C-alpha cells in the first residue's frame, strides 16, 4: 500500500505552519485525496484543510462528494489514493473507531441514534467512553440542557420528532468532547426554530471552545447563520473557497450550485 510508505512524513502544511510559528496549524488536512467507486471518481485529487478552531461550511450540489469526503476523513471509506492528516498525524490507515478515539466525532447524514433506547441512555452510551463513572450523569445532564433535551431525557429516541432526533445525534457527537466535529446536514428536515436553535448552539460552542467544526449544509440561510468561511465542492473537486459573500456572488458557483441564475 502506498499510504504506509509516507506514514512517517508529516503533513507538509502542518509542518510548514510549525516552522513559521503559526499558532493554528491544520487540525485536519488531506493530501491528493482521491476516491474512486468503480469508474466513478467521487473525490478527485483534493487538498482540503481546516485550521484548528475554525467553523467551516462545506457546500456543493448533490453528488459533489461532500459526504464521501467526510467518510474519508472518518475512515468509513478508505481512499484510493492520497492521505488524511489529523493534528499532524497521518491517519490514512486507521480504523474509524481509532480516529474517533483521537478526537474526531460525526453526525451522520441520515440521522442515526439508538432508536429503542431513551434519550438519556443514548447520551450515556455516547459519553461513557470519555467520561468517568462518577461524572457521567452530570455530563449528560449538562449536554442535554445545552441542547434543550433535558425534559425529554426519558423519551424513547424513536418517539422523538425528526428534528429532535437530529438534535440528539448532534448532542451525542458533542458529548464525546471532540476536537473536530463533523456535521453532515445537521438541520435537514428541521423547522426554522429548530435550525435557529442549532445555529445558536454551534455558534456558542465555536465561541466558547477551541473545537473545530466542519458542516455540510444545503441550506444557505443556515450557512450564513454559522459560518464565515465556505468551501465549495463540485464533481469531486475543490471548486472554490472563500467567505459566504464571495461564494454567493461568484457567478461560477451560482452556475453549478444555484442553478445558473
Amino acid at each position: 500500500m502506498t499510504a504506509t510508505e509516507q506514514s512517517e512524513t508529516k503533513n507538509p502544511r502542518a509542518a510548514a505552519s510549525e516552522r513559521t510559528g503559526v499558532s493554528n496549524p491544520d487540525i485536519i488536512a488531506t493530501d491528493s485525496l482521491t476516491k474512486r467507486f468503480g469508474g466513478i471518481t467521487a473525490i478527485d485529487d483534493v487538498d482540503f484543510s481546516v485550521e484548528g478552531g475554525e467553523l467551516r461550511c462545506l457546500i456543493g450540489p448533490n453528488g459533489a462528494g461532500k459526504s464521501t469526503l467526510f467518510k474519508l476523513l472518518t475512515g468509513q471509506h478508505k481512499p484510493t489514493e492520497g492521505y488524511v492528516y489529523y493534528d499532524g498525524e497521518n491517519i490514512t490507515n486507521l480504523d474509524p473507531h481509532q480516529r474517533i478515539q483521537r478526537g474526531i466525532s460525526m453526525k451522520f447524514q441520515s440521522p442515526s441514534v439508538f432508536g429503542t433506547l431513551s434519550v438519556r441512555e443514548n447520551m450515556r452510551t455516547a459519553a461513557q467512553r470519555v467520561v468517568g463513572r462518577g461524572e457521567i450523569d452530570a455530563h449528560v445532564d449538562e449536554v442535554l440542557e445545552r441542547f434543550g433535551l433535558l425534559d425529554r431525557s426519558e423519551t424513547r429516541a424513536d418517539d422523538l420528532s425528526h428534528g429532535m432526533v437530529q438534535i440528539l445525534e448532534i448532542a451525542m457527537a458533542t458529548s464525546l468532547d471532540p476536537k473536530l466535529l463533523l456535521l453532515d446536514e445537521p438541520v435537514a428536515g428541521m423547522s426554522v426554530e429548530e435550525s435557529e436553535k442549532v445555529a445558536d448552539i454551534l455558534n456558542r460552542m465555536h465561541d466558547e471552545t477551541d473545537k473545530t467544526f466542519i458542516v455540510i449544509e444545503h441550506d444557505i440561510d443556515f450557512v450564513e447563520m454559522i459560518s464565515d468561511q465556505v468551501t465549495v465542492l463540485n464533481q469531486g473537486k475543490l471548486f472554490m473557497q472563500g467567505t459566504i459573500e464571495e461564494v454567493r456572488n461568484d457567478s461560477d458557483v451560482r452556475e453549478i450550485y444555484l442553478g445558473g441564475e
Partner: protein
Amino acid sequence: MIERLKSALGALNGPNTYGNSRAFWVLFVVGVVGVFAYPMATGSYRAGQASLYLLYGFLALSLCFIWGYCGVLSFGQVAFFGLAGYTFGVVTLNFGAGATVPAALAGVVIATVVAAVLGYFMFYGGIRDVYVAIVTLAFTLVLYTFMAQTAGSEWAIGDARLGGFNGMPGIPNITVGGTALSGETFYYLVAVLLLVTYLGMRVLVNSRYGRVMVAVREDEDRAEMLGYNTKFVKFAVFTFGGLLAGISGMLYASWGNFIDPSVFALSFAALPIVWVSIGGRESLIGAIGATFFIERLSQELAATGSEWALVVIGALLLGVILLMPKGFVPMIDSYAKVGLRWLKKKRGKSEKEVPAVDGD
C-alpha cells in the same frame, strides 16, 4: 456494609433487563425456592430428568446474549455445545471418572477457543447480519457430517472411540470429591451454576459493557462512530457465547452419559432459536423460562407416545412470533407496566389528586 450490599444489588438492575421491580424480585425468589424445592417433592429420579431442562438454560442464555443483546444471530450455538460434550467424553473415557473436573474445564475451554477462532475470522473478515447465521449453521452441519462418519475404529482419540452415528456411550458422571453427581445432586449443581450465571449476566448486560453491546445491536455504524471497536465487541460477545454453550454441552454429556452427532443436527440447532424467540430475545429470564417450559412440554408430549411434540412447538413458535414479536417476557412486562400505571391513576383519582404519570 449495607450500603455496599445495596449498590452490589443495584448492579443487577438496569435498562437492559426486564424485571427490575421489587415485585419481579419477590417472584424471582419464589421461583428459585421452587426450583430448589423441586427434588424434595418429586424425588431424585425426576429431578435428574428435569436437570436436562436446566442445563439447556446455558445454551439458551448463550444465544440470548449474542443475539438478543448484541444483534448477532448465531445458528450454530449447538456446535460449541457439541464440541464441549465430545471433549468431555474423550477426556473422561481416557482418564476415568477421576478426571471429570479437568474434563469439564477442557470441554468449556475447547468450546470457547473454537468460538473465538470462528468469531475472529467472521467478524474481522467483515461478515455481518444474516451471513453470520449462514456461516455458523454451515460450521455446525460440517461438524455433523464429520462426526457422522467416524464409525470406524480408526476414529478414536486414545481409548475413546468417536463412534459415528452410534455416538460415545459410557461417559462418566461429573464427580466432585469422590461423589458422582447424578439425580438430585446433579440437579443442584446445575441449578446453582445457572443461578450464579444468570445473576452475573444481569450485572454484565446492565454495565457499561452491556450498553456497548446494545449499541452494536441497535446501530453498528453509529456505535463505531462513537469510538467503539465494534468488531472486537462482537468477537468478545461471540466468544463468551461459546463459553456458555460449552458449559451446557459439557453438562449434557455428563447428564446423559452419552453424546452423538445429533447435537450438531439442524433440528437441534434450531431449538435455541425457538426457545429464545418464544421467551423474548432480550430477556435472560425469558430464555431460561421458555427453555424449561418448552423442553418439559415436548418431553411430556413425547412420553404420551404421540408425534405431536414438534407440531405443537412449531405452532407455539408461530403464535408467539405473530402475536408477540418481541417474545413472552417483554409482552408480560409491557402489560404489567400498563397495569401499574392504570392502578396508579385509579389510586390517584380516588385521592382527588392528579398524579404525574411517567412516560417510561
